[in-house]
């Protein structure tokens, strides 16, 4: 498999009024060509901020270190001008709330043509033609009517399709989808996820799908990374992860979610997600872990390959060695 993106030892801190927030604590992950990689975790685990780091869309109080290698170049070393070419042309993004990513004051037509012209040397007519093709590609009926509409005249599902159409306007090699269906109903969620998978086959891009929903992960992803409080705690193929979860946090998450097929007892994780202003030392999961050992409080476990293509960061599996 060919590597498309590789994140190595990514650390990210935010200077805040209350002190330093240690948001990413050495993230390592790889995304291959033509795969759907799911990044799961709860609120505040750093999954969205990881995607923002890839696109360098971070606020000015951020301090970042590490490497983000995309198609052979380190994105953290690029100038803003070079980054602009990457964004949109090579890496596109779809956000959670399609209403706030579209400008309510302009017609879809204006917004699409503007974006297409920004990156392509095209006349207005050509750009409009391209916009129509894109809307057809995302299965929107009656593209002419959509182009003449304002965002509020479209439903949530239609707006999200417009956002996907925009994201695809330059044949990106990576599509980052940050909770693309969280604001939508389940029936619409299914339509949008199936659309993304369909378009992926058609346009040959990789997908980084950020979500908190393990059901969505099971249905759409090829590989999964589980994040907790700024760390990747486990990476595996999707079937392996659900069948043989190694990290206590992954195990906890899986036994805390209800299953629509039958009623099973839920075992909640105890406690809450820690504050990133004062993260627990050592393994950040240790205050909530049932297998806590003395070493967990002192030493941060490394992400090691426990079995083939199954990585875990936990002292139970020898994460402290090497």
């Amino acid at each position, binding site marked *: 498999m060919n590597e498309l993106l590789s994140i190595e030892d990514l650390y990210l801190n935010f200077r805040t009024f209350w002190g330093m927030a240690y948001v990413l604590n050495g993230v390592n992950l790889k995304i291959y060509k033509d795969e759907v990689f799911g990044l799961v975790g*709860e*609120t505040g685990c750093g999954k969205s901020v990881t995607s923002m780091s890839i696109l360098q869309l971070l606020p000015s109080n951020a301090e970042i270190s590490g490497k983000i290698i995309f198609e052979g170049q380190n994105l953290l070393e690029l100038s803003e001008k070079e980054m602009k070419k990457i964004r949109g042309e090579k890496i596109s993004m779809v956000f959670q709330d399609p209403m706030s990513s579209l400008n309510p004051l302009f017609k879809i037509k204006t917004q699409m043509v503007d974006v297409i012209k920004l990156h392509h040397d095209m006349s207005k007519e050509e750009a409009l033609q391209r916009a129509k093709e894109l809307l057809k590609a995302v299965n929107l009926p009656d593209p002419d009517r959509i182009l003449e509409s304002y965002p509020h005249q479209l*439903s*949530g*599902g*239609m707006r999200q399709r417009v956002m996907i159409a925009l994201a695809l306007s330059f044949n990106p090699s990576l599509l980052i989808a940050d909770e693309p269906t969280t604001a939508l*109903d*389940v*029936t*619409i*969620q*299914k*339509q949008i996820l*199936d659309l993304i998978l369909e378009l992926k086959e058609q346009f040959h891009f990789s997908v980084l799908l950020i979500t*908190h*929903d*393990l*059901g*969505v*992960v*099971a*249905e759409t992803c090829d590989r999964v990374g589980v994040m907790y409080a700024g760390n990747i705690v486990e990476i595996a193929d*999707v*079937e392996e992860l*659900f*069948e043989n979860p190694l990290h206590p946090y992954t195990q*906890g*998450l*899986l036994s*805390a*979610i*209800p*299953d*629509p*097929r*039958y*009623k*099973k007892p*839920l*075992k*909640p*994780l105890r406690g*809450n*997600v820690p504050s990133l202003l004062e993260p627990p030392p050592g393994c950040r999961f240790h205050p909530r872990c049932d297998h806590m050992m003395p070493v967990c409080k002192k030493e941060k476990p490394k992400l090691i390959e426990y079995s083939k293509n199954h990585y875990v960061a936990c002292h139970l599996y020898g994460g402290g060695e090497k």
Partner: protein
Amino acid sequence: MTEMIRVENLKKYFPFKERMFSRQVKYLKAVNGVSFSIEKGETLALVGETGSGKTTTGRTILRLYEPTGGKIFFDGQDITKMPMRKFRKIRMQMQMIYQDPYSSLNPRMNILNIIAEPLKELKYDNIEARVVELLESVGLRKEHMYKYPDEISGGQQQRVAIARALGVNPKFIVLDEPTSALDVSVQAQILNLLEELQREKKFTYLFISHDLSVVRYISQRVAIMYLGKIMEIGTVEQIFDNPQHPYTRLLLESVPVPDPKDKKKRKKLILPGEIPSPLNPPSGCPFHTRCPYVKDKCKIEEPDYVEVEKGHFVKCHFAGMIE
């Protein structure tokens, strides 16, 4: 068992004008003829997509909206038109818990005052002792009393909202998406807490949700709503293992299953289109615009309820006939 809540042909219409100065007033039929009953100690889940009228139904039962038509019975008494002075006493036994715990708690009050507020009505000798007791019953500690809502986590805020609702010793609680703002690990804590409280105090729940996995876990009976009407109602096993309405089937098919092996086994069925605007609902069966089995009859005639098995009602012309 006896009934706690009975709703007969409940309607709630909201008037609106298409143009600001138009004389013609139209009605948005948010709840359009809903009937069901909930036994004491039972949980009925009300499921539907955005705009299906599930929240409006919950609020109308508590008379947070005055019903346009139909009847509501609480513990055998007709409360539909009961004068407010008399209703106040009964209303105390009915509580509601909302989706977003933060916006249902006053940010300028500490937890003690938030929970004590409804207790003042009940003339407790020692309100503080009662607050501590309530906090402990929802898994919080005495120390939380002097904190403010923004100092505690979302899960803890929802626990405070539950404690406040419990203070007046309710019998019936409407839970409006109580876990959809919470993370999965915390969601499981709250669901377990709600179950435990029900077992201990024999609460009756109306659980409003769009999350079918959660519904399968918490409820005994389920009602599926679409455009202000109940399309199918039955026990949780009847609805999940033997769904008869095409809408219920497609809705269940859309729910993501947390098991990667499952996706290969299933047929790929997608529910096409989106829920039509309730301002302009389709004629005949409200679901006909999206139904894969639609026949001419569905476009003209609204189907009645068919009892396909005991206690399992389906509002479809072809109930029991669809493969």
